[in-house]
């Protein structure tokens, strides 16, 4: 078995875990202004306070893992998207400290609520734009980024950025449908529905844009025999999307959230088909960028030993704080 392929899947898994887990945290941040100051916001924030930190750790695994498993890709992508990464990091600073600060300083709770929303929004937009900048291709010369300052800023990257914001809002809203009840839940349901429509529209737009982006992508999706592997992705995405809209309308518990995750899963699959086997389109394949065999083996041992434990205790932590926030709270 080719370890480089295994590592590509591990990194993809880490990125996906980050996107869906911190995605709903950031989504709640984005939707925060829609909730009334006071109980509504407090409950929304308390539904993620015990888990956000663990969720954000997947970002470190995604970045650190890329550094370790595909150092060349890490060394090219980060300078290429420099302003976006810096903006994301600063956004996450504001978002992260707001969890603590707003409780410590009721007099400035409104300011920290704004920081929570602003930080979440900037982080989500930046992450989506990094994805777009990657997909549209990065200019490489030798072993380094060779593009200009502003390559990351195009209509396409703005589209992927806004799409990510909408997607995170969908995850956040469906999470709140699960964790809240009463009036707040009704509010979350309404938001979830709108976010779902926006997400689907933007996903569709990005997909179409991808086909026009270059011949390579179009060939993957539109010519035989690739089309037989690729075609199920958009078909299944459509099925999930309709199911999700139906579930948001009537389910009171976790179902909309799981379907939103499934929608993201389909998006990820589509992304995989598009980018494979490159890690930096269009010049660097996963094999070009891969760390040497010894590094891959050493880390694989670590992942094999720790990942079941990590998933186990993360699941346990979620289990401890299960149930509606309104019913149980922090008692």
């Amino acid at each position, binding site marked *: 078995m080719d370890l480089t392929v295994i590592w590509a899947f591990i990194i993809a898994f880490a990125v996906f875990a980050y996107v869906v887990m911190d995605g709903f945290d950031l989504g709640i941040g984005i939707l925060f202004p829609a909730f009334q*100051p*006071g109980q509504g*916001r*407090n409950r929304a*924030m*308390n539904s993620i*306070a*015990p*888990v956000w*930190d*663990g969720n*954000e*750790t997947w*970002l*470190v*695994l995604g970045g*650190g*893992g890329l550094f*370790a498993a595909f*150092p060349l890709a*890490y*060394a090219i*992508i*980060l*300078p290429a998207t*420099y*302003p976006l*990464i*810096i903006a994301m990091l*600063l956004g996450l*600073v*504001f978002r992260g*400290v707001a*969890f*603590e*600060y707003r*409780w*410590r300083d*009721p007099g400035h*709770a409104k300011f920290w609520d704004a920081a929570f929303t602003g930080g979440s929004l900037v982080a989500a937009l930046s992450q989506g734009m990094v994805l777009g900048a990657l997909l549209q291709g990065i200019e490489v010369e030798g072993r*380094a980024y060779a593009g200009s*300052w502003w390559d990351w800023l195009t209509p396409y990257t703005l589209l992927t950025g806004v799409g990510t914001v909408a997607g995170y809002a969908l995850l956040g809203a469906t999470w709140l449908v699960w964790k809240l009840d009463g009036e707040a839940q009704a509010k979350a349901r309404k938001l979830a529905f709108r976010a779902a429509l926006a997400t689907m529209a933007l996903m569709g737009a990005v997909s179409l844009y991808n086909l026009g982006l270059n011949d390579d992508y179009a060939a993957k999706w539109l010519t035989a025999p690739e089309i037989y592997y690729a075609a199920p992705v958009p078909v299944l995405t459509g099925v999930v999307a309709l199911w999700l809209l139906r579930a948001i309308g009537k389910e009171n518990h976790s179902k909309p959230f799981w379907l939103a995750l499934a929608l993201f899963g389909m998006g990820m699959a589509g992304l995989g088909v598009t980018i494979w086997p490159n890690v930096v389109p269009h010049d660097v394949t996963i094999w070009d960028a891969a*760390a*040497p065999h*010894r*590094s891959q083996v*050493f*880390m694989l041992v*670590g992942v094999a030993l*720790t990942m079941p434990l990590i998933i186990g*205790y*993360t699941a346990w*932590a979620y289990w*401890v*704080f299960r149930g509606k926030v*309104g019913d*149980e*709270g*922090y*008692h």
Partner: protein
Amino acid sequence: MFDGLDALLLARIQFAFTVSFHFFFPAFSIGLASYLAVLEGLWLKTGKSVYLDLFKYWVKIFAIVFAMGVVSGIVMSYQFGTNWSVFSDLAGPVIGPLMAYEVLTAFFLEAGFLGVMLFGMNKVGRKLHFFATLMVAAGTFVSAFWILSVNSWMQTPVGYEMAANGQFLPGDSWIAIIFNPSFPYRLVHTVLAAYLTTAFVVGGVGARHLLKDRANSHARKMFSMAMWMATLVAPIQIMAGDMHGLNTMEHQPAKVMAMEGHYESHPDGAPFYVFGIPNDEEQRLDYAVGIPHLSSLILKHEWDAPLAGLDTIPDDEQPPVFMVFWAFRIMVAIGVAMLGIGLWSLFARWRGRLYEWNLLHRAALVMAPSGFLAVLCGWITTEVGRQPYVIYGLLRTADAASPLDAPAVGASLLAFIVVYFTVFSVGIWYIMRLMSAAPKVGEMGAKRGDTGPIRTAGITPGPTQNPGDADVLPAAKEEAE
């Protein structure tokens, strides 16, 4: 603001700034997590509520420190790629896996159990909660283990092979890479520094409240525990520092020459300079005040031992001496002062005046932030002292930076400076406010929120448990308006 500075220098300033800021938080949280585990363990063992109260007092502070550590730490994990992409590409195969292990074995552990530690006391049993606290403490330590292994490998690189494309590749033994020659010393010295830093913060807070109210049993307990740490750990730390220094002399002699201010070689025993203004251009120590032979005695444990100076090192391989020389002196001075406080408190304890001696309490209060300064100076000593290399002797810092233009690096540096100073100053202000409240019976924990009715009993009922931090609820305040 950054006119005339090149991208390399800006990138170096940015790394120095972000890592210095970041390290304050783990330096505190490594020690504080262990302290919280000790407090909770003592509570479970003895059943005395004072330990639970102190746990709840400090866990609120821990929550803020930890959040600041996390957000500033994520910046670090991306900084390698944004500003030091050449380094990342070349060294990634060796140090990348160690950092991946840090994420897998430390970051997930502490983050995964943090929620239960902060908010779960009434949701899980006492023993399970204690287990969560222990896991958070273990996570902070394991994190230090891996990141210090990475740093040490960059200082004393071994166990690698060079690839044709210039990459460092791992050799056949990861053990050799992880336990590289400077790692054990750096690990012990840094972790003890974190414990001492925390002890002096806890001691300072205890002292402050003793100055206001000598009878406060909670303040007495924390002061006493902190002073035991100072008494026991400060001497061990000085010994560990000495051994670390000897290790450095073996592997990075130029760094020790800079620490000592030895521009010249001393064939018949070298002096220890207490004062001096390093002058790199003229390669001499101006206004030097030295104690003859002391340096030879410390470094070689021999009166007349010859010591080589920077005159044996080519100019373009020398570190800048001024920062190293003075950072080292400040660190050592603080270490000695910490030892002094430890001994003084032991004397006070013996005379039965530990809780009555105002002057001791004032001194402990003044010393409260000293650990942070010592830690910062220690890192300046070791990081500036290994210049001009990022991987010692093999890769120059100047050859490791990203292909970025100065304005890009300057703009992001400015953003980091503005955001860090505002956000973290506010956090520190909140921490100071929490510290200025006297610890009391029935201390509130880190819980917050107005979610549901307040209950006095959870799964494990007890009179000392409490639900929300009712007096700081935004909702409660808004409803009152």
